[in-house]
């Protein structure tokens, strides 16, 4: 499908047809006082060459680091073919095509994306993606409240990503929905299944693993929530799904909705985006699913074809009663995820997950062997873990950064009760040599800076 802007001649012809002299004339009815056309803070136009140079210089200033930060965005190897294919002209529009059915290839790709996500999460229905994990979770919370048709309270574990909690709060706070925190066990790092409040709640959110990297007791949480008449919203790590039991099989009946971040499936870290929200649900909840859904059908002569389906849920038909004001999807990122999953296959994705898990365990063992460094939680981990250090976290991370290492994400602001703690991640991208480099530097920095100078004379 070509995405070709109009030529000057086209624009002149269109303006002439409606009797308007120039583009500005189209906006005449907006009172001058409401116009904001003087963008004084925006610099003058620059040439492509100048912009490229500026961007290169800025990028160089960022430096190049050995990265052990996860905290919601994960560094994985992306096969070169992923973006080589995703950026082909036929796919390279970030947007949902307006004449969707004219873009059969795009729809087929999204249909395959949906099939893969449904299969990974063990739930029957997937939409064609949402913006990112945090807003996908907020949509899942709204969906669960609609489905429950009674309670408007939702349980958000404190061990859920703090930024996701803030995004959910922002998106639901004006809809009369109350978000209730659920504590975690200070020994295991797992969300406490015995701490549900007495009030009627519509849903429980279950991250897997949680923000601490700790695997939750998903079966018990799911069953307990279902016994209390709640829906269960799974928020799984996309890579971990290749290794762990899918949300559709949690507990006796399985989670009702899964929503999360698709970035680990082929998207670079790229300073925070564009990322990809995924969302799947049980078949009976289909009508309350927000976002676009691609369906497979046959045309007038019986040939298979793809179409946007179930659009009566959506804003352009249902107006204010739509399931969501989201009328789009993250098309390019979903395309990249589809290609990534197709290239790796189930076995390859499983290998990424297993290697990441193994590397994280190696790193944790190596780091906690250093005096003054410990792992406060006993719960099993996936590819990320919390470290407690007996020295202030901020200067420690600074010192590591000076050695070219991003050592982790400080938990001091979000989880003050943990004291000096940081969140550390290792994926399949970290070699044993990388782990050794991190460990050596950590030991040296902690030893040099924060421990008393060794006594010159050893007691005999």
């Amino acid at each position: 499908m070509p995405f070709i802007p109009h030529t000057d001649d086209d624009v002149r012809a269109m303006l002439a047809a409606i009797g308007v002299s120039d583009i500005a004339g189209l906006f005449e009815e907006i009172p001058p006082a409401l116009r904001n056309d003087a963008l004084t803070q925006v610099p003058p136009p620059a040439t492509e060459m100048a912009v490229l140079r500026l961007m290169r210089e800025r990028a160089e200033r960022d430096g190049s680091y050995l990265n052990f930060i996860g905290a919601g965005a994960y560094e994985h190897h992306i096969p070169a073919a992923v973006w080589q294919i995703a950026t082909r002209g036929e796919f390279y529009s970030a947007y949902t095509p307006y004449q969707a059915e004219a873009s059969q290839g795009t729809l087929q790709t999204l249909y395959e994306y949906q099939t893969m996500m449904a299969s990974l999460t063990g739930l029957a229905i997937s939409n064609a993606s949402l913006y990112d994990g945090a807003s996908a979770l907020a949509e899942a919370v709204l969906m669960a409240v609609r489905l429950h048709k009674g309670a408007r309270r939702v349980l958000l574990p404190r061990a859920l990503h703090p930024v996701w909690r803030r995004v959910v709060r922002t998106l639901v706070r004006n809809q009369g929905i109350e978000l209730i925190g659920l504590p975690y066990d200070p020994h295991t790092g797992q969300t406490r299944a015995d701490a549900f409040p007495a009030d009627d709640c519509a849903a429980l959110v279950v991250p897997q693993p949680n923000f601490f990297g700790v695997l939750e007791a998903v079966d018990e949480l799911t069953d307990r929530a279902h016994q209390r008449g709640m829906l269960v919203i799974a928020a799984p790590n996309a890579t971990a799904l290749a290794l762990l039991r899918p949300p559709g099989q949690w507990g006796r009946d399985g989670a009702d909705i899964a929503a999360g971040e698709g970035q680990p499936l082929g998207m670079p870290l790229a300073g925070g985006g564009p990322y990809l929200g995924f969302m799947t649900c049980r078949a009976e909840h289909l009508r309350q699913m927000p976002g676009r859904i691609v369906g497979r059908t046959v045309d007038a002569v019986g040939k298979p074809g793809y179409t946007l389906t179930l659009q009566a849920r959506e804003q352009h038909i249902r107006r204010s009663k739509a399931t969501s004001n989201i009328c789009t999807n993250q098309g390019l990122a979903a395309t990249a995820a589809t290609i990534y999953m197709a290239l790796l296959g189930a076995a390859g994705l499983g290998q990424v997950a297993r290697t990441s898990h193994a590397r994280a365990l190696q790193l944790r063992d190596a780091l906690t062997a250093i005096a003054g460094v410990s792992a406060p939680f006993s719960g099993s981990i996936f590819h990320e873990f919390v470290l407690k250090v007996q020295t202030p976290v901020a200067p420690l991370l600074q010192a590591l950064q000076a050695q070219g290492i991003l050592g982790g994400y400080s938990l001091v602001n979000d989880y003050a009760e943990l004291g000096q703690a940081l969140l550390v991640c290792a994926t399949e991208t970290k070699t044993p040599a990388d782990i050794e480099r991190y460990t050596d530097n950590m030991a040296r920095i902690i030893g040099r800076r924060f421990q008393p100078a060794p006594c010159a004379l050893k007691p005999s």
Partner: protein
Amino acid sequence: MSTPEHLKYTASHEWVRRESDGTASIGITDHAQQQLGDVVFIDNPAPGRKLKQGEECGVIESVKAAADIYAPIAGEIVAANTELSDAPEKVNQDPYAAWMFRIKPDNPADIDALLDAVAYQKIADAEKS
């Protein structure tokens, strides 16, 4: 288009039939199903729910649109036609047999105050012209 004389109607295109047990069955009119096209989904109110007259209580979805269903009279939902969940096309095939839900009226006289077939036919004709 058929508009049976023994039924009562609303301007929002519901029909109402008084049943022998004192409840009232509610569906959508032949005119409404023609306007909607092929019906693919019906979201009925849950039994036990109490409704005010004119309250939105359900959704009927077709291949090209989704329309709200309004309670023609005040009362309590006593039954929803679960057959329509699996076979929503019955609304197109025979709209006056395909009742959607039954209400136990708060005030049975409310039914008498609804539109008769002649008055409803005028409304439907005006919409078509």
